[in-house]
């Protein structure tokens, strides 16, 4: 593989798979704080 192809493959992996990782972390963090039955302040 050429250098530019390797770089773009890594960029794609980091951005898309990393983006998925961040999205999962964001969501799982939030559920910890989710107010059960209590009305939510706006």
């Amino acid at each position, binding site marked *: *593989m*050429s250098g*530019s*192809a*390797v*770089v*773009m*493959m890594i*960029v*794609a*992996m980091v*951005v*898309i*798979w990393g*983006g*998925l990782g961040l*999205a*999962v972390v*964001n*969501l799982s*963090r*939030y*559920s910890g704080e*989710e*107010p*059960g*039955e209590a*009305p*939510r302040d*706006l």
Partner: protein
Amino acid sequence: MASPSEAAHPPEAHRGAFSSRRVFILAAIGSAAGLGNIWRFPYVAYENGGGAFILPYLVALLGAGIPFLLFDYAIGHRFRGSAPLSFRRMSRTGEMLGWWQVGICAVIGVYYAVIIAWALRYTIFSTNEAWGDDPNGFLFGEFLQVADPGIGLDFVPGVLVPLILVWVVVLVILGLGVQRGIGAASVVFIPLMIVAFLALVVQALFLPGAAQGLNALFTPDWAALADTGVWAAAFGQIFFSLSVGFGIMITYASYVGRRTDMTGSGLVVGFSNSAFELLAGIGVFAALGFMAQANGVSVDEVATSGLGLAFIAFPAIISEAPAGALIGVLFFGTLVLAGITSLISVIEVVISGVRDKLDLSRTAATLAVVVPSGLVSVLLFATTTGVPILDTIDYFINRFGIVLVAVVTVLVVTWAYRELPDLRAHMNLTTSFPLGRWWMVLVGGLTPLVLTFILVQEFRDALAEPYGGYPAWLLTFLGWGSAVGVIVFAIVAALLPWSKRTRLDKPASLVTVTSDRSSGKAER
């Protein structure tokens, strides 16, 4: 996550609901990750700039794909109904939009099932490489027995039997309901699909020539970024692959607990879909690199997409690769799993619409939708004349069905009903990721602009030359006919009365419901 008392809330239980946010996310990923992720994305990326494609692709994902996904979620989650009911609750005149989407799903369902049936058959063919040394001749000759374009009733048993099996599976899953059927199937199938595909990718990466394939896929062609066609391809890929704009995500979102973080879930679903696509690109091009090397040709001579990739190129790879049978079972098995989870989401849009309109039980609505769909599917596509019909309907309903209804819906909701501020406020009630005004600009402005551009281009292409070289009657009656037919269906369905038991008023917003819950005020 839905609290126990929320899940047991009588009106919600009546419609059906996912038991948790996790199940909803898996079901939504199941719907989004379909055949297009595996056989469309790799070639689109390769053709449109290779490694450089990641830039327009990301812009399309973040600028239009995820915002549109959240738009669908917001409608279903806010209005708590199938597509027709949600739009009817949004506006008295909106119902037609929902039925238009239902009609499109009904049409897609009948032919999508056929491709799954083929993949099912090829999973078995892989074990003994039944295609011999001529996968192309085998596919169209021995297996599909393709005749000249026409409509006939010469059944092909090799397609008929697996097709009936697919419809029986769909009937069982959808008959079991939202959680026990769709939810349970997704919880089992999606992890299984990911594991199977990972195994396939690992195996493909060890094939000689794999690096050559990846090199072809990822070598950037920066000049491609100056081409509007490449940007249109990126938006088109994101749009088709996410299953947005034709009712699926509205329907699924209506089954989700009222306090679920929909925006955060949408980000996970959107990125999961792309993550799977990228994985598919790596696996497919590693395998294509092997095939190119084995035949002493360059990758561009073997690179292809769609049916040709799955049913002609892959069989050739399976025949030549070490442990080819295993590659075949994993590849076609993944196609079946990805296809089934998408098919049930498409059919559920129809069932949900019928259920809300007539207030039928789950079993009655499932039978009323799945049995006729299965019959049409078998009569039209399990025959020697099925392939040209399938190809034609697929081409037209994607462009002049899905893209068109998406543009019209987003324009009407934004500019006629002016619902975006309300939808945004709804999404921001319970969220880890608040939507700013930028979301309204992306959904109401950028997305319809880009989709209209794509639509005009497709329209010009379709008029310039007859698609696939098929006869005019086929293109007119089944191609344009299916695109226009779903609109006629929508108008008629919208004129029919609702069951008196279906509440058509706008559900109270979350804040009101929370304070009214103790008094037992129901939303429908």
